[in-house]
């Protein structure tokens, strides 16, 4: 197959867009002056170096606000979504702790959200970790039931980084508004990919990540609603920049980069998504047409189509990744995680351990081409076939043996 030779393709092919994204050349261009001649500290009030840097930062702030339907003043720059999540969860909970001591979140959240909640538990807060349905979506009735008059915050991520499912943000926001609790969403994987509107969706806090949307690493933002006002205790002390929420000199070049990335994403979102959806379909159908027992993790429709997480029954994830070494992807297999624990997100979906070990996540993005997808399909199919020939489980399945009926030993 000519696709297999990878002629004219730059290898390895990047298919890990959830892990990070390359810098869009237009973003780099916007940033360059602030890495070279315009090096001023945006907080320097007394000279042109500072004024120019400040102007650039404020323009960038406006672009970040625009893509989520927020007011400029509502945007606080941070070092990334991890920091934003920490500020949102710990900062809000700690501020209101005299009156409210309960937080609600979801079992499939990013580690930084779960760890922030665990930290709050150590500080005496109650936290409810809601389960999800097998398709990865939150049950709204369970959410409603979990909220009490002591609940200060509900935190639900917009688009899941491992499986790509989109939570019903507008419905969640309405419930939170109705029940008088704040709604925070980790939108790192969502900004610039799905339409977001903090007013329509009744979102009070939103975490934004630069390097997930073709912007630079090391910058993010936190949207903090001012009407009605959400109060936040800062994580660390300093000169009181960013409305007292986040002290520190703003890295003008990074803020400019985030702003540029948001403006570009807002403009390109429609066209990007159409292309990406087509490529997703091509990849998914290319693999499932050639192989049986391939399982999609996460709802097929309520998802961002830049994410394709599949379980390849009878083939372990790391061994498959080694076989498709010209593709840069990631796996939910325990073998690839430092802790040897399989993905907790897949476990929350009810995916059984043996299948969780076989999962691979493919990320498609703005720069993915059709030729790259065709090459990927050819390589994946070849290796799945090869590794199934090597697999005693595949052999048993072919012989009609029910693998679940075997008493496997412990080791």
């Amino acid at each position, binding site marked *: 197959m000519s696709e297999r030779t990878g002629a004219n393709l730059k290898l390895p092919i990047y298919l890990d867009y959830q892990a990070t994204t390359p810098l869009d050349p237009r973003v780099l261009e916007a940033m360059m002056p602030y890495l070279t001649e315009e090096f001023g500290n945006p907080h320097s009030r007394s000279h042109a170096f500072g004024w120019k840097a400040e102007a650039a930062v404020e323009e960038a702030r406006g672009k970040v606000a625009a893509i989520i339907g927020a007011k400029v003043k509502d945007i606080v720059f941070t070092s990334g979504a991890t920091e934003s999540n920490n500020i949102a969860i710990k900062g809000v909970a700690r501020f209101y702790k005299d009156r409210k001591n309960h937080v609600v979140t979801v079992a499939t959240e990013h580690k930084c959200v779960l760890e922030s909640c665990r930290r709050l538990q150590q500080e005496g807060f109650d936290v409810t970790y809601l389960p999800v349905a097998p398709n990865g979506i939150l049950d709204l009735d369970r959410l409603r039931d979990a909220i009490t008059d002591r609940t200060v915050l509900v935190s639900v991520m917009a688009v899941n980084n491992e499986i790509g499912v989109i939570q019903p943000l507008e419905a969640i926001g309405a419930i939170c508004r109705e029940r008088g609790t704040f709604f925070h969403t980790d939108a790192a994987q969502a900004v610039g990919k799905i339409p977001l509107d903090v007013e329509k969706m009744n979102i009070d806090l939103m975490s934004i990540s630069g390097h997930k949307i073709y912007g630079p690493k090391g910058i993010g933002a936190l949207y903090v609603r001012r009407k009605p006002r959400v109060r936040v205790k800062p994580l660390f002390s300093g000169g009181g920049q960013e409305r007292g929420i986040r002290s520190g000199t703003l890295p003008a070049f990074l803020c400019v980069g985030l702003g540029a990335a948001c403006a570009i994403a807002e403009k390109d979102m429609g066209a990007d998504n159409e292309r990406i959806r087509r490529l997703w379909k091509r990849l998914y159908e290319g693999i499932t047409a050639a192989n049986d027992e391939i399982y999609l993790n996460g709802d097929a429709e309520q998802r961002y189509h830049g994410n394709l997480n599949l379980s390849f029954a009878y083939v*372990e994830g*790391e061994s498959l990744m080694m076989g498709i070494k010209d593709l840069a992807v990631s796996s939910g297999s325990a073998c690839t995680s430092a802790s040897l624990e399989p993905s907790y997100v897949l476990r929350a979906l009810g995916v059984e*351990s043996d299948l969780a070990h076989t999962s691979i996540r493919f990320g498609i993005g703005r720069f993915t081409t059709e030729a790259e997808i065709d090459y990927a399909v050819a390589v994946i199919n070849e290796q799945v076939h090869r590794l199934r020939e090597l*697999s*005693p489980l595949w052999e048993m399945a072919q012989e009609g043996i029910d693998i679940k009926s075997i008493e496997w030993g412990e*080791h």
Partner: protein
Amino acid sequence: MAYGDKLIDHYENPRNVGVFDKGDESVGTGLVGAPACGDVMKLQIKVTANGVIEDAKFKTFGCGSAIASSSLVTEWVKGKTLDEAAEIKNTHIAEHLALPPVKIHCSVLAEDAIKAAIADYREKHATDRDEVEEKAAAL
């Protein structure tokens, strides 16, 4: 994971992949691990009448280290007596393949697979129940 050359070679060119007839008198089959753990190895040995392993086959569900460990083991057992094969230690496997520390358990499983295949063969040929238990206990 950054693997060494020998490991990658065994992964890309696994030796002795395949199946012997489980029912064959000269075949011992070891099946170890568990799908829920992400590691299952099936190791089969074909043994001559004088107790020498003349051939071996394997199939593995597992990571690159698991596949390489079991492939290596099929090479090492050939030409050995059952007792000699039982001497193969996971540390030798791990050293030869330069397994990273987090993957040592794959070599342990490969050692278990050899012992399970040997035990299965011995059980098939046990004239005396006690003799089998004695040998199994000695492993």
